């Protein structure tokens, strides 16, 4: 989240779209209620009328997979009705930037598309620059090549009528939602967006969020209290696990994984470090080299020296642009190319799309290591439905794990607050924390490689691994200190002297000469030089009264609670909304939240820095060339959608999305055999794949079996009554469930024809309880977002019939 949970209470208008806070983040709804008690308006936009919708001031339905059309219409509304916050646009975004003449858009494609490789050559998406390389700008925002005019031109196509005929949302509802939310444009009011997997799990997922970011920038809602772009993340530590980059494409601290065409550290640093000629741009990522070297020092300690590029060669390199995300390596597993699979506290047999393919792939493994606190469909795949155990060769190691209250460690919530959690109990029987398993396993691997040698043993032998408590167990605190990072020699920095071995207090003091280590630069500052862990703090003070609680736990980066908060002040450093003073310049320093850098406000032309310090030019991107499918989000139909053509353009689906070629990866768009749009979601009473909550007796009493929610109109058509057993089939698989015929789902009028929509929970699996039903992901397609490959669980086609 750019803001945090308590900050929601400051909002004047809350849009809950692509999420269902009342059911899936119930306590966050407490802060929505506080905002409503102060007069805020709550809008719920969802294909289905949920418990969140039942508490909203206004509810609007939309067909799954049409969020960009819906939000594109809002951009058009904001521009046509002059609802945007002009000074904010000129000061903090690239709205005034002039784009190259070569850039264009025609019939669904931006300039530079190569249909053979299904990729864009982004050369034409560059800005016009003067001889000194500074971008040309038109602060009056009138020049036809300036970003704002190109934006206006692009979204002028998103008329209310066309958007309504794509989303199925009545025109009147669109207008009401657009008016309610765009009323937060300007300094006095702030609007916030609460989104979750309802937005990320589409082939255009990243661009949906980009569309909302553009809206929030147009209205001046970023960097202010009650504003921001806020993801309600699902798992308890998904923010922490993402920060620590257990992901193929990034190293801890979001440092891009090295590619094969960067043979040494220097070429890697040159490839990843952004440059800018813009004046007053902090371009914070220019410090990239300090973070990668400090990371390598934390991994390889003494062995990492300037002479050997700090062990840069120990880090595996991807082929340029190679994608090794979960659907890709399950594809390899299905083709028998993967021999070993380590799966910790996760249940892919239920939550990876096309479960038949996933479960068949597991059977191709030589061995599977699985650690969890309960058994589940993954660990027991070899005796699943329709599986002959005697034919499955895979060895399976099922390791009993400690639950969260049976170990010490820290967790980062959606609002980037890091909490330390204390061991309150012991695991049952031989249970062991996963950290201890890893600690012992690597020690055994080091011993094996020391004794027997083997392929390139150096990375294993050089890995620093002194994280024991002296009694053979893991000491989590020693890991937290390594993640924070150390001074590796005596040094004086920031006007103070530090000894070798002391923890570094801020990432501004990290160096790329090997004199500092940091396992994750974003977490530097969590442990103080005298070894105090700030994530353990419980201070209740809130000097600004804005609910920042600066002394409660610690939040990255450097305890800043609202990101880009310099955008909340004017050129003199005074808050643009006086009754929510997030930040104030007192003449020589900032007061309030931790500022995005200590530089003086914009009025001090010489020493100031622009607000968006993580962006190379210091301004936010209305025109965003960084993503794969275009600088402006464009509506494309889901890969498996109901329509043969995209009403918006000649491009039916996202032109750069990756499609899998194996016969089992079939897609059936606009196929009469599968006429009904389907989406998936979780129930309040269960959690994710249900691998934990399905073992809790009175949660299964309240929500016993998988069900399909459908409209009365569809039920009548199929002769289905409420409570009947129905069979849901897609081109990939089928599943039986109980029909829940409801008014909370209605057919959509799309392009003049009636399109039916259904929805079901993905919380169930065959392993437990016995008659609960199996996973909805038997139906979902193997296709994902063009930038992240987050699977498109939220929009695919099925048939529904009485079972």
């Amino acid at each position: 989240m750019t803001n945090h949970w308590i900050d929601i209470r400051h909002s004047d208008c809350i849009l809950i779209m692509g999420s269902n806070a009342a059911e899936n983040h119930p306590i966050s709804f407490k802060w929505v209620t506080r905002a409503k008690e102060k007069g805020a308006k709550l809008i719920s936009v969802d294909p289905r009328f949920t418990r969140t919708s039942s508490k909203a001031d206004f509810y609007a339905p939309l067909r799954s997979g049409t969020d960009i059309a819906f939000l594109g219409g809002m951009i058009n509304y904001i521009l046509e009705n002059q609802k945007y916050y002009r000074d904010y646009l000129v000061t903090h975004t690239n709205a005034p930037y002039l784009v190259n003449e070569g850039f264009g858009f025609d019939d669904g494609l931006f300039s530079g598309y190569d249909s053979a490789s299904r990729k864009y050559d982004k050369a034409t998406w560059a800005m016009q620059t003067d001889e000194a390389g500074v971008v040309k700008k038109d602060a009056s925002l009138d020049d036809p090549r300036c970003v704002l005019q190109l934006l206006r031109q692009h979204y002028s196509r998103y008329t209310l009528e066309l958007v309504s005929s794509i989303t199925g949302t009545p025109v009147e509802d669109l207008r009401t939602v657009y008016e309610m939310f765009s009323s937060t444009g300007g300094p006095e009011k702030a609007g916030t967006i609460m989104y979750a997997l309802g937005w990320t799990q589409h082939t255009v997922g990243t661009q949906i969020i980009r569309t909302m970011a553009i809206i929030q920038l147009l209205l001046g809602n970023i960097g202010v209290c009650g504003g921001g772009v806020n993801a309600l993340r699902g798992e308890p530590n998904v923010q922490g696990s993402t920060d620590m980059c257990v992901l193929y494409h990034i190293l801890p601290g979001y440092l891009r994984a090295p590619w094969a065409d960067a043979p040494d550290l220097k070429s890697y640093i040159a490839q990843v470090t952004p440059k800018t000629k813009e004046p007053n741009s902090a371009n914070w990522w220019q410090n990239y080299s300090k973070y990668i070297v400090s990371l390598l020092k934390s991994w390889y300690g003494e062995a990492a020296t300037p002479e050997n590029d700090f062990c840069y060669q120990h880090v595996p390199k991807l082929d340029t642009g190679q994608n090794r995300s979960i659907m890709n390596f399950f594809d390899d597993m299905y083709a028998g190319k993967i021999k070993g699979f380590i799966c910790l506290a996760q249940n892919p047999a239920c939550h990876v799309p096309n479960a038949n393919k996933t479960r068949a792939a597991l059977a191709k493994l030589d061995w599977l290591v699985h650690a969890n606190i309960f058994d589940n469909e993954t660990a027991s795949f070899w005796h699943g439905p329709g599986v002959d155990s005697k034919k499955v060769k895979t060895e399976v190691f099922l390791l009993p794990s400690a639950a969260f209250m049976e170990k010490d460690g820290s967790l980062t919530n959606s609002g980037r607050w890091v909490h330390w959690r204390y061991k309150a109990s012991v695991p049952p029987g031989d249970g062991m924390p996963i950290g201890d398993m890893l600690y012992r396993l690597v020690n055994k691997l080091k011993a094996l490689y020391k004794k027997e040698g083997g392929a390139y043993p150096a990375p294993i032998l050089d890995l620093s691994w002194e994280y024991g408590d002296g009694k053979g167990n893991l000491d989590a605190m020693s890991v937290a200190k390594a993640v924070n990072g150390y001074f590796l020699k005596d040094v004086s920095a920031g006007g103070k002297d530090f000894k070798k071995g002391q923890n570094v207090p801020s990432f501004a003091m990290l160096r790329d000469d090997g004199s500092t280590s940091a396992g994750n630069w974003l977490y530097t500052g969590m442990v103080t030089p005298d070894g105090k862990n700030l994530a353990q703090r419980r201070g209740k003070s809130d000097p600004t009264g804005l609910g920042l609680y600066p002394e409660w736990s610690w939040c990255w980066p450097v305890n800043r609670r609202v990101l880009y908060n310099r955008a909340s002040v004017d050129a003199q450093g005074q808050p643009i909304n006086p009754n929510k003073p997030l930040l104030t310049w007192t003449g020589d320093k900032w007061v309030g939240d931790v500022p995005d850098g200590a530089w003086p406000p914009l009025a001090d032309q010489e020493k100031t820095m622009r607000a968006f310090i993580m962006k190379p030019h210091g301004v936010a991107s209305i025109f965003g060339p960084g993503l794969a499918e275009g600088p402006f989000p464009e509506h494309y139909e889901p890969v498996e959608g109901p329509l043969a053509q995209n009403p918006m353009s000649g491009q039916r689906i996202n032109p750069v999305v990756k499609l899998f070629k194996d016969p089992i990866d079939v897609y059936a768009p606009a196929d009469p055999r599968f006429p009904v749009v389907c989406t998936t979601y979780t129930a309040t009473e269960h959690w994710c794949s249900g691998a934990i909550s399905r073992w809790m007796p009175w949660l299964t009493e309240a929500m016993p079996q998988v069900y399909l929610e459908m409209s009365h109109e569809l039920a009548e058509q199929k002769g289905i009554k409420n409570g009947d057993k129905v069979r849901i089939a897609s081109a990939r698989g089928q599943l039986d469930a109980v029909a829940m015929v409801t008014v909370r789902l209605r057919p959509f009028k799309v392009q003049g024809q009636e399109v039916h929509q259904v929805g079901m929970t993905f919380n169930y699996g065959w392993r437990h309880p016995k008659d609960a039903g199996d996973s909805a992901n038997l139906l979902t397609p193997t296709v994902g977002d063009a930038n992240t490959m987050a699977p498109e669980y939220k929009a695919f086609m099925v048939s529904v019939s009485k079972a």
Partner: protein
Amino acid sequence: MSEGKSIIMDTSRCTACRGCQIACKQWNGLPGTKTKQTGTYQNPPDMSYQTFKVVRFAEGKADNGKPYWYFFSDMCRHCLNPGCMEGNKKNEIIQDPATGAVIHTPATKKLDYNTVLAGCPYDIPRQDPKTKELKKCTMCLDRMRDNKIPACVKTCPTGALVFGEREEILKIVEERVAKLKQTHPKAKALNPDDVRVIFIVTDDPDRYHKFAEA
């Protein structure tokens, strides 16, 4: 009659988190029954001799054409003069003098279930098929005697369930209904003068539950 205890069940604040349904089971030691998905979020489907409280889900089309979804945390109303007592032979069904709670004692196994049920306008009493005893919510009389508040009220996170002296509760009901009327003209309290457990609704009562109002 404003002595004794009273409870508010304010449906406008209820988010159907079902904490009350589960707390009632835990306090009264009632087993988690084996349930089926019958096409509704409401489970277990109805009250029984093992389920004294059920959160009812009711949906339909509002006047503006949009759906509505109401949640009704159903329980015995503990009437001021209980209809179920008409089925009494001696005093198998009693009314606790201090709190006003209506209690079905084990002696109810001698009563004719249909007569007792007929007396209740809210369809609350249920019969244990084996022991024939009548079973229902006791307003947590045991907790109240230990001057504790009922288990369902204690666990409600949104303030939808409130417990207290009947006098104060009637005042709170009035304030809440007055405030709700500003945005929901149909807001009202159900049978406040006849029952101790007073439901507040913001739409026609029968949209919530057939037996919502007497």
